[in-house]
């Protein structure tokens, strides 16, 4: 039997601000903070909406991170290190804690140090001024910040990156590499992404409206979510974990560079259930990928309607935007909070505009007193699919505490 892995700490920075609390408060209020982007090139239309981490939150994060990161702040590192430090504090640990010494550090990101490379290419800074753009330094910085000398690495799987990172960490813990992992995802605002999504006409002047018949655009966003995973034997006595990470399924559509494939996405759902021995009816809540694009929401919605008719579905990108490589991390943090609070935050659309026959949570947060399992979906360009399933944290080991 696989070793049980628990989530013991959460850290978050998002357009809602620095910390898990503002993130959860905005989710439950369905309060978005979208703003218009300045066009970046001649082909980009004005009025495109996006969500940015507010200046106050950036400054708060900058004060927490290492001096090396502060000296040449690249947004992805600032976000990831802040979220990691918050997560270990939430787990009752301090940097250099013995439990962190050989921790696995794995960070998912699509754009890495996009700002550094973009500044270099545009001639705004020289290489020394940018701090460099190899994405590895994100994981290295997180590892140094938390005091881990264990394996540290970054994974790139477009918008599925964070869930893939969770998968890598889960497998390393279960194989005995370490008892602790500091894992999640980060992405900062990327000119390249804005240009690219603009070229696809996938971003625009109306906000992301997941599963709405009026949906049209993705709303890009930024931030980081990090969680502390621990093996059952390493979970500190007296501390209640948020959740148990049961499995993460990863596959690839191998179908189209940008469009999702219904069979590939459905296969990832099947793999996730098979890997942890659950049935679709065991899934009580789904944090959908829910980008607000026609293609994604149609495919996801059809799967939910057919296979998960009893699950409550929510999509948080209508509130905090699409955090790209960190989107799965935002969903994972929200999933753990939902399990802890037995509460599902609403999707920021009206009940009357829901297109497909799914139980989309709208309006007020919904209480689910007997919440057992929460599924967190993350899919990305390139056919990447990754689905994590979390369970309520019932620990047999608590008898020994």
């Amino acid at each position, binding site marked *: 039997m696989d070793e049980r892995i628990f989530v013991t700490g959460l850290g978050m920075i998002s357009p809602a601000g620095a910390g898990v609390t503002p993130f959860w408060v905005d989710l439950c209020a369905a309060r978005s903070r979208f703003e218009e982007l300045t066009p970046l*090139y*001649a*082909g980009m239309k004005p009025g495109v909406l996006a969500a940015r981490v507010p200046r106050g939150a950036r400054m708060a994060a900058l004060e927490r991170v290492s001096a090396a990161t502060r000296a040449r702040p690249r947004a992805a590192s600032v976000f990831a290190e802040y979220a990691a430090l918050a997560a270990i504090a939430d787990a009752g640990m301090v940097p250099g804690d013995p439990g962190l010494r050989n921790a696995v550090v794995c960070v998912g*990101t*699509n754009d*890495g140090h*996009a700002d550094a*490379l*973009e500044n*270099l*290419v*545009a001639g705004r800074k020289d*290489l*020394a001024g940018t701090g*460099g*753009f*190899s*994405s*590895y330094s994100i*994981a*290295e910085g997180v*590892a*140094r910040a938390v*005091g*881990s*000398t*264990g*394996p*540290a*690495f*970054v*994974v*790139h799987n*477009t918008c599925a*990156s964070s869930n*893939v990172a969770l998968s*890598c960490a889960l*497998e*390393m813990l279960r*194989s005995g*590499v370490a008892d602790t992992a500091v894992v999640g995802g980060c992405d900062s605002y990327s000119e*390249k992404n804005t*240009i*690219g*999504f603009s*070229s*696809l006409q996938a971003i625009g002047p109306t906000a992301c409206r997941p599963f709405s018949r009026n949906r049209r655009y993705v709303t890009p966003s930024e931030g980081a979510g990090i969680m502390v995973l621990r093996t059952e034997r390493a979970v500190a006595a007296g501390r209640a974990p948020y959740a148990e990470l049961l499995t993460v399924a*990863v*596959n*690839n*559509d*191998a179908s*189209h*560079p*940008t469009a999702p494939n219904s069979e590939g996405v459905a*296969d990832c759902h099947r793999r996730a259930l098979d890997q942890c021995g659950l049935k679709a009816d065991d899934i009580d809540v789904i944090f959908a990928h829910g980008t607000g694009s026609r293609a994604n929401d149609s495919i996801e919605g059809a799967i939910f309607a057919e296979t998960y008719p009893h699950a409550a579905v929510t999509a948080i990108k209508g509130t905090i935007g699409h955090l790209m490589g960190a989107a799965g991390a935002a969903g994972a943090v929200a999933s753990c909070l939902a399990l802890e609070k037995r509460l599902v935050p609403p999707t920021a659309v009206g009940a009357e505009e829901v297109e497909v026959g799914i139980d989309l949570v709208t309006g007020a947060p919904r209480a689910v007193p007997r919440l057992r399992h929460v599924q967190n979906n993350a899919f990305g*360009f*390139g*056919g*990447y699919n990754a689905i994590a399933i979390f369970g309520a944290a019932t620990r047999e080991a608590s008898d020994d505490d």
Partner: protein
Amino acid sequence: MFQFNLSRVALLALEERETPDVDPGELPADLWDVIGTGGDQFRDWFTRLCLYMVLSGGDPSRPRTDDTVVIGTEYGNAAAVAGLQRAAAEQGRRLSAQAFPQAHSSSASAFVNLTIGATGRSITVNAAQLTPVLSLWQVLSAFAHGRSGAGHLLVGDVYSAEALADARHDETGLRHRSGVAYGVLTAGDEFTARFEFASDEKDVEGTEGTEGREHVGGHTWTSDDGDGRSPAAIGGDQPVERNGAFVTAEFLRLVLGLRPGRSAVLRCRGLDGRRATVTVSRKGGSDG
């Protein structure tokens, strides 16, 4: 402990140039025949080399599989990412929507999956100098969980001008040559692999000092169950490459050539003091 079989090893190395992403030098004569030219103007050389490696000698009529694809790279598709930014500035409204899918940090693996019809696990890994070991770990973990029957391991970099500048900024003393290594691994029990992760903690903690820096990068050798070491297999006096392609190919070739009961070791050490080692042993021999 992981188990696997190894069926193919290849290395494609480019000449040492300042801008290999623009001027890669001599290329395989059949490159375009193998990878095709459709949409090629949007690819960078890293994606082209990865596609060439998986398609060369492969069966184009092979049906879709649950194969795993793992690409280990430090700079990956940085050339295409930078290219998209430049193209937007130069072309404005004429910017093609086909450029964006090629300009992600994981574009190469996405197009490898798409091209060979691999629907299994797919990951692009960056662990700096430890990338070869951690990438191999990902492939073997997929076998251990019964998720794939075959794995395509690609490790390497094609340095763009920006990537070269970034890599040289570290002042590692390592050589920067472009290339991609390719290994086809399958589920089986011919080989066992044991991984170790460790660190020189002073370096990890950022303490000043260069002790041991001469060992940064990847090294590989064969051993008699850890008792001996064959210096001849390390690569003699050749400078150590930053690009993990070269040591990965050398290591996989050592593995392929192992006699029963013998082992090959790949040890990688990062600038930050982290170390990763994989020891692969061929089954059989007097010690079983």
